[in-house]
């Protein structure tokens, strides 16, 4: 008798765990499917060259997507994340290639990196301030900063470089891009950023606050959580992560470009949302984003290798987002279970 009871308890615990796994990482299954699809049907998918390529592409997406996860956890938007990439790229490039500092490679690299991080910080501060203090919707604010940023980058490149991009970046900086034997450098950078984000979200007070504010800002405020500061920090973190991405990407391209990241926004949001971070805030995290990024990168890569046109890639990605949103909605109902149903 006791035995069977024990057993049924075990099964219940296992079921509960399985349920939670699905609730927390609905994406796992899809990642598995695209990966299997790649291995089975896509030529050259498993070559070491392609694997390396995949790895770098993943790094390119992961850092900024981790930053974007902070925003999504509060159900916000940051359209300007990709503008951080191009603005920091052109300004950093200018410092490193054209300013008087360019004569000293190490110094130029440090100054360049510092400038680029500052740009990310600046974007974060402006966005955060407008949302928190001026109470503007994040969509509007970041649309404005996105436009201004992109216009500035284009204008600056045209006027100062005379063209869209400029090379001649110092050698120490290029190491960050992972060319040749430095392949592991960007991988390590993105892993560090990933674990940093994960650490913040799961282990720190700030992380707790982010989840609380994303779930119920009123209750959070009354519980003494500084809601405004938390939201502000989310934007700053997103800006900084984007800047780090700007550094890695600029180094990868070996050039400062005013068009850097112009096509990335879709991928970023896809990675975050498809990964399973709730579009209505409060649920998810960077582990989900990692899985989402893996999914998006493999999907893009596989379809590229097969040779489908970009419209098809867009189509598939769009469908994936739609599906993810539907799953998110269903999970939300499951989380709200009975009582919430009354109110809906």
């Amino acid at each position, binding site marked *: 008798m006791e035995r069977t009871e024990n057993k*049924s308890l075990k099964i*219940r615990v296992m*079921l*509960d765990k399985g*349920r*939670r796994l699905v609730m927390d990482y609905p994406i796992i299954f899809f990642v598995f499917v695209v990966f299997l699809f790649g291995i089975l049907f896509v030529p050259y998918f498993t070559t070491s060259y392609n694997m390396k390529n995949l790895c770098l592409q993943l790094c390119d997406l992961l850092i900024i997507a981790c930053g974007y996860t902070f925003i999504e956890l509060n159900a916000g938007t940051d359209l300007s994340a990709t503008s951080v990439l191009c603005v920091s790229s052109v300004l950093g490039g200018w410092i490193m290639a054209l300013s008087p500092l360019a004569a000293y490679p190490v110094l130029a690299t440090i100054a360049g990196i510092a400038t680029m991080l500052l740009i990310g910080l600046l974007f974060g501060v402006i966005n955060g301030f407008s949302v928190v203090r001026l109470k503007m919707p994040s969509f509007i604010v970041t649309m404005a900063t996105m436009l201004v940023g992109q216009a500035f980058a284009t204008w600056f490149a045209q006027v100062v470089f005379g063209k869209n991009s400029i090379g001649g970046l110092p050698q120490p900086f290029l190491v960050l891009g992972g060319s040749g034997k430095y392949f592991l450098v960007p991988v390590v950078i993105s892993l560090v950023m990933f674990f940093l984000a994960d650490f913040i979200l799961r*282990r*720190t*007070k*700030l992380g*707790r606050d982010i*989840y*609380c504010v994303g*779930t*119920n800002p*009123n*209750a*959070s*405020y*009354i*519980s*003494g*959580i*500084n809601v405004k500061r938390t939201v502000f920090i989310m934007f700053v973190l997103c800006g900084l992560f984007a800047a780090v991405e700007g550094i890695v990407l600029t180094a990868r391209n070996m050039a400062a470009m005013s068009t850097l990241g112009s096509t990335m926004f879709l991928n970023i949001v896809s990675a975050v949302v498809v990964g399973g971070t709730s579009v209505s805030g*409060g*649920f998810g995290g960077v582990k989900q984003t990692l899985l989402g990024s893996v999914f998006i990168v493999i999907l893009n890569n596989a379809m590229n290798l097969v040779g489908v046109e970009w419209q098809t890639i867009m189509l598939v990605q769009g469908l994936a987002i739609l599906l993810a949103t539907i799953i998110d909605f269903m999970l*939300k109902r499951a*989380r*709200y*279970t*009975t*009582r*919430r*149903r*009354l*109110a809906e």
Partner: protein
Amino acid sequence: MSVLQLKDIKKSFFGVQVLHGISLELKEGEILGLVGENGAGKSTMMNIIGGVLQPDSGSMFLRGEEYHPESPQVATDNGISFIHQELSLFSNLTVAENIYIDGYPKGKLGMIDKKKMASTTEEYLKRYHIENVSPSTSIGQLPMGTRQMIEIIKALVKNSHILIFDEPTTSLSNREKELLFKTLNELREAGYSIIYISHILEDVLMLSNRIYVLRDGSIVADGPTEEWDRDRLIHEMVGRDIKQVYPTLEKTIENDVAFEVKDLCCADSVKDVNFSIRKGEILGMFGLMGAGRSEVARAIFGVDPIQGGSVVIKGKEYHKTTPDLCINNGMAFITENRREEGLMMPKPVNDNMAMVMDRNLVRKLGMIDRAKEAELNDKMIHAVSVKVTNPKTQTANSLSGGNQQKVVIGKWIVTKPEIFIVDEPTRGVDVGAKYEIYKLLLRLASEGAAILFISSEMEELMGISDRIVVMKDGHLVKSIDKPDFSSELIGSYAI
């Protein structure tokens, strides 16, 4: 004649059986009382009747015919109305829109008959003496008590023949309660059938014709009201006797004032409120709905702005406060609106418990001391005896109403507040747990805490307060000391 019949209804959630074969009968023209501890399964049972939940097995009959409500709409169509324990109003819609939410009256050309909506709403508002509220007021601006009356009106407007009231009076003051009871009696006379769930046993005994007692998902006893009295009800509910309603604890009130409110104005309607609480003192605050009690509490804690005057916390005067500042000064505040302001409903119990205490558990690098957090979580869940299967995963919205309230209390008590503002802390909580909450408050007071205890239940105010202040129309009209407590006196200042 039986109107509604339940036969052997069973229900479990994720492997935990909550209802173990419930059979029940509701007759025409009667009020059926249903009582039981928090988490006994009362709301679950009603949700099954109302089509919100589906039973695992068992059957229901409506006037002898088999009845399977797949959705709340089916229940409504069959003339069953439901006043939910957790208010289900939309705070962004108006009073009239909320009342007609499940079926707007249609006029010419199928357009919504706004005039009719407004006039009927107006009529009901007047009938229930809900002043200062018009059909076009948005729900979000209204205090909880008014919202609850609107919820009740919403059910009455439908003119259903079976009405289910799941703890309808938790936010009402005596006057509204009396009005509601009068209506219930009228409805019964007119042949309507009513199921009435409440933790206020006196009300159940006074209102109902028959009473069912639910314990751990089974009906353990039932019978006509004449055969019941309070003590026997409690005995059946909890399985043992609870003799005392209010704990007794020796405590001394010190001379130091812990907390003071000076000429406080807030919420446009509350003017020049003055009072002070000494260490170890429990100050009760009484008033009718709309008297401004919650508004005072909210302004003190910085949830709403202070429009004039100041608060003095431990000798230091503030003209502007925030919850953060108050908590840093050892204050705590249980709001009356637990769903929107007290809890993160879709998050696990532990996450909710940790909301306030985490600020004290920050270690190097901003890290949370998770071991300590887990330890305190366990301790609190025990201290307030939350009925929960797995606090790490079970979400707040899957707890019974009373258990949700216990989580809110636990979340604040864990910081050992020195100045504690509690707004209707025993709302929806069963007898046994009420006793525990009183005991917790008294113990805090005996350790030197100052407590502001807001309640609409005069009995409990008189039971544990050392002094009671009465508010009326935004003014503090009277302060009454313990020896002079009597419901007539207190009531006379409130009206």
